[in-house]
């Protein structure tokens, strides 16, 4: 049997030696933080003109995460490329010849990529929070306020999980273009539309991203999700596990 630490080391070499890793992850940080700061600054300027109901339920933490909607797409691109690059380049043949235990290969790759996504996700969430709060002026929240640390740490977990979900999907679909063509519009548009329309909202509440976003909210007044932050993250984690199981099943059965 292949030795797991050796395969992990090999996958780390793979991930650090291609440029797509650097640009997807650095763009994820940059976009999430920049957009969060922008929205936070605009909100700060317009705060006095907001309706009183909105002022009362204002969620400073969640506002600083406004960039996540775009930043998560970069995390998805990272997750898709990490896995599907193997197929699109033909590297998969060399990889499986070196590590024929396909489960060891796939989960070592995903473990390394997940760890990296987690580190980058947490860095993104914390920078986005502090930079966003700095732009919110007197309306800002403090990290020690109730629920805020959970929301920020949870924001990093959210970015990690969405990336791992993309890895599982890419393992099933293999093609980077197909994976991106399905995942990007789904998480950027479709899921949000389904959640915005009242007829589909109660179903959309259980989509991976809608469920996972609950953890980033500190003020939940008026939120339609019938579960708490950790249950929301658990629902998202179940989606991720399903995607990984599917990805493993495909890799195990199909010819490389």
């Amino acid at each position, binding site marked *: *049997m*292949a*030795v797991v630490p*050796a*395969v992990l*080391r*090999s*996958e780390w*070499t*793979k991930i650090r*030696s*291609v*440029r*797509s890793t650097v640009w997807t992850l650095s763009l994820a940080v940059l976009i999430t933080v920049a957009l969060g700061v922008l929205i936070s600054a605009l909100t700060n300027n317009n705060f006095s003109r907001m309706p009183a109901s909105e002022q009362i339920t204002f969620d400073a933490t969640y506002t600083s995460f406004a960039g996540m909607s775009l930043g998560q797409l970069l995390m998805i691109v990272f997750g898709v490329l990490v896995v599907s*690059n193997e197929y699109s*380049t*033909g*590297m*998969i*043949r*060399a*990889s*499986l*010849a*070196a*590590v*024929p*235990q396909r489960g060891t290969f796939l989960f070592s790759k995903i473990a390394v990529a997940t760890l990296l996504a987690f580190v980058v996700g947490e860095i993104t969430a914390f920078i986005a929070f502090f930079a966003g709060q700095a732009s919110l002026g007197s309306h800002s929240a403090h990290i020690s306020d109730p629920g805020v640390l959970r929301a920020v740490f949870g924001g990093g977990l959210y970015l990690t999980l969405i990336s791992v979900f993309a890895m599982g999907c890419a393992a099933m679909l293999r093609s980077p273009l197909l994976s991106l063509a399905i995942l990007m519009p789904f998480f950027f548009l479709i899921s949000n539309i389904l959640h915005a329309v009242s007829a589909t909202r109660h179903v959309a509440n259980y989509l991976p991203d809608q469920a996972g976003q609950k953890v980033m909210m500190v003020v939940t007044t008026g939120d339609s999700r019938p579960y708490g932050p950790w249950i929301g993250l658990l629902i998202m984690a179940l989606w991720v596990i399903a995607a990984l199981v599917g990805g493993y099943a495909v890799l195990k*059965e199909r*010819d*490389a």
Partner: protein
Amino acid sequence: MIELHGLTKRFGEKLAVDSLTFSVRPGMVTGFLGPNGAGKSTTMRLMLGLDRPTAGDVRIDGKHYQDLDEPLRYIGALLEAQARHPGRSAYNHLLCLAQSNRIPRARVAEVLDLVGLQAVAKKRTKGFSLGMGQRLGIAAALLGDPTILMFDEPVNGLDPEGIHWIRNLMKRLAAEGRTVFVSSHLMSEMALTADHLVVIGKGKLLADTTMAEFIRQNSRSFVRVRTPQPEQLRDALHGAGITAVTAADGSYEISGVTAARLGDLAAQHRIVLHELSPQQASLEEAFMQLTAETVEYHAHETPPPEPVAAEPVAEPAGAWGENWQQRGRGRSGEGG
């Protein structure tokens, strides 16, 4: 040692590999020959566990590929299609493969040196030429210092210098006692490197024999004689108990007799000769003769006839006869 037992792979309706049984032995170069589409690459992918066999199995030193500990230390393979990320440097490509099998980092520099790529080690492989790509693939195959090496069409697209280098490398690896298994669709290439020959066509085994035996059985040698006095020559040959075959251009092809003996015979009978030349039918022709029927299926999609027996070169059959005439030396009917 690689052993295949009834190895079969079906892609939908198409039987790509049809119950192949043969062994690849150490200490020699085994050539794996077949026309394009014969199933060579699929067989190699099955050997590496990349494709799942429909039936049968492959064992590497008695084990299934999946059960090998750190397989790069047992078997190194150069596959036909390129298997590398173009954005990764040659060094990192080899390093990640080495690390997965706990091969020391120093070995990466060693194999890069061995294949002559040390100067471009840090360059991304995107800009590599076909020849550089083949060299990198070979470096990856040699990484674990394996006892078994497998090369799929290694000389495809290489310049003469590269071809020469690969031929010598394969011979050297075999001389070191390793098992070398190399595929090609060119008989001439195999004749220069292989000690043993496995021929397949349409996924079926057509021949499994030593190169020497294949040459002995398949390279038809004869003497070509041309004369303005064909009647006299025929009589003279008949009188000496020699059978001649009339070629399309009117010359005679005579087997089993030396040119000297024929020259003497003609002189005795005062027959003028315009040509007296020993000839040897090429191995390429013998290979084409062997695989002609299997190639034929491709062209016409006729229902497959009886499976071709696993014995080298049978009598020429009608199916390839016309081809043979065009390709060959203009031999025609069995005149005599």
